[in-house]
């Protein structure tokens, strides 16, 4: 069934940083635009290091606030003493006023939408604006791009429960995460995986003695664990090298840790992941926490076998039943080393897993993922039974009276 063209708004915290979320947003916008949807990509504010993201003009990009100077988070006094804090109260009022202006701008954008339009709030901070905007006649989809566990462990959990409760749909990346949210009382929880956003022309030969790891050099990405595992492997395989791509706060410490090994190369940030992947034979994901790791998606698309810690439902979904890679219990560096070694020693196994990975990743082909989105849009806009008037008084999912009056 070919879907009728729709108006789609994708609202992110910012639309031009160099992160995975922005890559997803631009890719999604391009794909939807390609088949005729009218897409507007909205950034609440600008990113710190703007990036172009191969924009081709097929979709509009808007920014609500050139800069965001008010406090990042809303002021929530917990005690009577805090309530008396005049400075904080003033900052809170300043924030609310600025947010109202942004939301009014958003309402203007939404007002031009044709029936059947959808708003996708990609992050919980951006959702604050969407909730304050007038979304009557539209359907609001709120997304969380990380695992339930990661959200549960952070302050975002409370904000997600508050701001996403009224959304028509709350989307996470895997079925397991959606179930966890449903158990936590979010009955609008559903899932759509991220699509593969690379189309490889060349593939690695899987003969070069290189293990690659791509990610920010920070604690949650676990590169220190990879170096620990590498320490057990390196001596027995002197020809092999470990390529670590990325930058981050832990870089110095990691370089120090790797100094004695000799076979580790820190290669910094790269613009095109292809360079990194085609000259590797094994991909390593030593993360402590993940959502739906794009790097594994890419590695699989390029036909690289992956060794990963079983740290999140997203990783389990990608490497389902060990197809295209190997999962290791979180933190077990000895086993991680053993699995790396098994792949390093066996080119046939690499080829077999690599081929599996390329086949398996088709589950996340953009067409397949877009079909899931279409089904969702279709469900959200199912018609009323015959004779029923089109929702004259649809309850606007906004609870704060202040926000409602702002919208008009």
């Amino acid at each position, binding site marked *: 069934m070919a879907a009728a063209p729709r108006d789609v708004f994708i609202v992110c915290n910012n639309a031009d940083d160099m992160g995975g979320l922005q890559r997803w947003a631009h890719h999604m916008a391009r794909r939807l635009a390609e088949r005729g949807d009218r897409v507007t990509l909205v950034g609440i504010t600008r990113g710190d290091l703007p990036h172009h993201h191969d924009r081709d003009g097929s979709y509009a990009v808007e920014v609500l606030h050139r800069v965001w100077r008010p406090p990042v988070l809303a002021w929530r006094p917990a005690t009577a003493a805090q309530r008396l804090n005049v400075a904080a109260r003033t900052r809170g009022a300043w924030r609310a006023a600025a947010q109202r202006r942004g939301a009014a701008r958003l309402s203007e954008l939404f007002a031009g939408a044709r029936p059947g339009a959808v708003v996708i709030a990609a992050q919980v901070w951006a959702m604050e604006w969407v909730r304050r905007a007038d979304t009557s006649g539209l359907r609001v989809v709120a997304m969380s791009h990380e695992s339930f566990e990661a959200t549960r*462990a952070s302050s975002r959990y409370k904000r997600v429960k508050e701001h996403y409760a009224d959304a*028509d749909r709350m989307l996470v990346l895997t*079925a*397991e995460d*959606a*179930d966890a949210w*449903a*158990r936590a*009382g979010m*009955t*609008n*929880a*559903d899932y759509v995986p991220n699509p593969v956003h690379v189309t490889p022309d060349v593939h690695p030969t899987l003969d070069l003695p290189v293990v690659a790891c791509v990610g920010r050099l920070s*604690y949650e990405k676990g590169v220190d*664990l990879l170096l*620990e595992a590498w320490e057990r492997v390196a001596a027995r395989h002197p020809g092999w090298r470990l390529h670590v791509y990325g930058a981050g706060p832990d870089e110095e410490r990691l370089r120090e840790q790797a100094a004695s090994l000799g076979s580790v190369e820190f290669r910094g940030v790269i613009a095109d992941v292809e360079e990194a992947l085609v000259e590797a034979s094994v991909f390593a994901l030593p993360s*402590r926490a993940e959502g739906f790791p794009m790097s594994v998606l890419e590695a699989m698309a390029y036909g690289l076998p992956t060794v990963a*810690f079983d*740290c999140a439902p997203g990783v389990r979904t990608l490497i389902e039943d060990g197809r295209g890679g190997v999962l290791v*219990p*979180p*933190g*077990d*560096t*000895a*086993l991680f080393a053993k699995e790396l070694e098994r792949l390093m020693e066996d080119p046939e196994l690499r080829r077999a897993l690599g081929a599996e990975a390329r086949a398996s990743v088709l589950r996340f082909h953009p067409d397949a993922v877009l079909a899931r989105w279409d089904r969702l849009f279709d*469900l*959200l*806009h*199912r*018609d*009323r*039974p*015959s*004779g*029923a008037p089109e929702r004259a008084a649809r*309850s606007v999912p906004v609870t704060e009276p202040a926000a409602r009056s702002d919208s008009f």
Partner: protein
Amino acid sequence: MRPDVSVVVIAYNDARRLPRAVGSALAQSLGGVETVVVDDASTDGTAEIADRLAAAHPGRIRAVHLPENSGGCGRPRNTGIEASTGRYVMFLDSDDLLDRHACLNLLAAAEDTGADIVSGLCDRIFLDVPVGVKGRVRAWYPWLYRNRAVYEALDDNPDLLYDTLSTNKAYRRGFLEEHDLRFVEQLHYEDLLFTAEAYLASGRTALIPHRVYNWLVRERTLDPSISNRRAELANFADRLEIHRRIDRLFEARGAHALGQAKDVKFVNHDLMLYLRELRDREESYRARFLDLAAGYLAGLDPHVFEEANPLSAIAAYLIREGDHAGALAAAEYDPAGRAELRARLVERDGRVFWGASGPSGSLGHRVLDVTGFGFHVRPLKELRPANTVTRLEVRDGRVRMAGHMLNPLNRIGPDAALSGTLEFRDRRGRAPRGRVPAAVRYEGDRIGWRAEFDPRRRIRPVGFVDPVWDVRLRLRVDGEEIVTRPGPGPGAPPLDGAAALPVRPRLTRFAADRLRSYVTEGGHLAFALEAGSPWARRAGTAARRAVRSRAGRLAWRHTGRRARRAKKGVRAALTSKKTKTAVFNRVLSRLPVKPAVAVFESHMGRQFSDNPKYIYRELRRSGRHVDAVWSYASSREGFPGDARLVRRGTWAYYLALARARYWVDNQGFPDGLRKRPETTYIQTWHGSAFKLMGLDQPRLKHGPAADRAKLRRMVERFDCFLVRSGHDVETLCAGLGVRSELLATGYPRNDPLVNGLDGDPELAAEVAALRRALGLDDGRRAVLYAPTFATGPRGRPVRLLDPPVDPDVFARELGEEAVLLVRPHYLCRANVPPGARAVMRDVGRVPDVTPLLLLADALVTDHSSIMFDFALLDRPIVLHLPDGRDLAPGYFDLERHAPGPVTRTEDELVAALAALDDAAPGHAARRRAFAARFGEHDRGSAARAVVERYFPTSRTVRGREHHGRRTA
């Protein structure tokens, strides 16, 4: 256009709530929803409401009226199915609510999976419980709905039969038509039969974890009348009839296994539901009910009793056998909950059985066997034996009370030292406010108590603010305390309102003048403060009116509640560990150090044992002047009399630590405490490592950085760390990140293992006494079984450790030559059946393991570090590593380096134990290599070496504050 989902709302005389239910169907986030209201010939205007709703929402709501009342839910629902057109059908009762996304979620799952039935979670909302209070929302069989699932047939998951609600599901219309599925119309519990038929017919059933249905429950507040009770009996008969029909249905399909699964569910769920309410019913009702139940249970496959939950099975079995008291007691007893043990237990053939009469027949033996619950080994207070009041009367202003507590399995012996106190307490207060000594007497299978007192002097309520008073009996048995709550029971006089205790409230007798007895919902005796004289009644009314007035409410809200919360908050804040840690670091650590004080702690204060004990003994032996302070966790029993004892976590404990010159410990003093530089921390540790330690554990590697930092802070405090071998340095010290001085002396606790008992008469006496206490002087070999703890399904330690060999087998095969000493990990308790006393002993209570090692002739363990110590004795070791118990990765290949034979099964273990002597020469070399490798530094002089290294011999060196840090 055809709607996607039809919601059939059935209503009978519910005009008030119908609009709310229909509103929840109208508010669905799914567009294509049609609502059909079926009015079951109501007489209260429900019909008009339904028509009005339909008129207001043409095309979305339709109203259907039955010509005459059907008396059930079956016909209205069937009518609704016929009258609706949606591709999927759902049912909603007029007093319940759909979740906003229910239709969308169910439809999406149905279309994704192609299922005939999609089912979502149902929440029961108890309206009597205030919003925000725990227990208001309780999910219905949440374990079925943890994750989304698709089942091709009922056989894939017979547990579906637990969820017999018809309402939290969407049914494909075509499916209902093809199988001609309709509700039965003459009987109650039509849901049960309908869902059973539907599950059985369904080609595919999908489950989603999303809540779809809110079942609003209003607990009955008034006692139903007699006629209602008779109606309930008829209901139960209906329920049994439905079950018989389901049985026939399964039988007709040849689904024997499903029938059995359904019967197990009947025993676990349906029967328990009724039994738990039965105690409040009068005798005739109870008898009739149990008759009905027995009739149905008689037809069940005996296999069902073995499949059902143990206590439910016992209840069902005893109903069948006619032991009603035992059955009710089983239905009410919940080992994990708060319920009490009301049943008699008997010991037969070395096993423990439920019920007064003991088992008969092989099925009875299997079902009634409760040895696994550990009633014979668990502390009495954990069992919560029932306490029955047999006398409650007031005469001449004096109260006479008496009663008896169950003495399960005669656990309390005739010569036990008994004393008791009756405690009266204001339900809202924390501490008892009236205490009365009670005379306690041993009476065989129960413990009798009685008390006589003047309530006016013993109980002083305030008046108005403390309207409810509870009673407890605190019983002391040989130092152990058991607190029970007396209540009604067989042989009890009527307690409800029977007695009025005269009292003098502190707010004078205008507040109230007596305490009237009543029985709480939990089945315990309590008293309500009431006013007898007209003056007091008037005062009470005035007081209540004042409180309820606007001003009173305001005052209560603004001062009372806040004051109480503040008081509670202040108390919690002042005694919290956080406060104590902060005060320790900022204040206490600035007080001068007392140069002779040494704080000792073993296993977080659990025992007087291990390395700290042997260092302490050496200090005493050598006559050094040391003010020893021992920390204890809960009981002072077993700790030395010549040391000062402080309870772990108290202010005294923190003060002692702050001013101590030495810390001696084998595990860890509270984290967060900054050790001052003047204090020397001797960390002895408690065993060599096989399992990964500290930062070597995957859990820590994977976990947040804060956990590593915490470990680092704790380990950085060590000034000295005892090691037994190079293995310790490579594993323990590396894993924990120890950077202090490593003292290669071996373990003080192992000195006696190396030296023997000859030079240590004190310890020799201790071992001899232990040997006598355990009755080990009959020449049989003592085999010590000491495994580490096993983790249960939820990752928690298993609480009861069973012997590795069935006691009967052990007695038959090894009984002549060996006695098994079962030593559980300190987190568990040994469950040695009573019949095994001839061949097994529970040595879990022995605080220090060293004497046990000394008297053991052989050791059976798994991967416990005890093997590293026992190897020093050069006596046989068997490693029993049953299959299925997953071995966490260790530092070396245990099987390859094992100090003795490795066994996997019970038979292998028995064979290995029987052949210890024959196999000895073969294993001796391995054992010695093992001891040499892991006990490299154990030379029998560890305690002396530690003491000489850190504790000065005379007072002359006391001035040197940093003695412990200098290298020798």
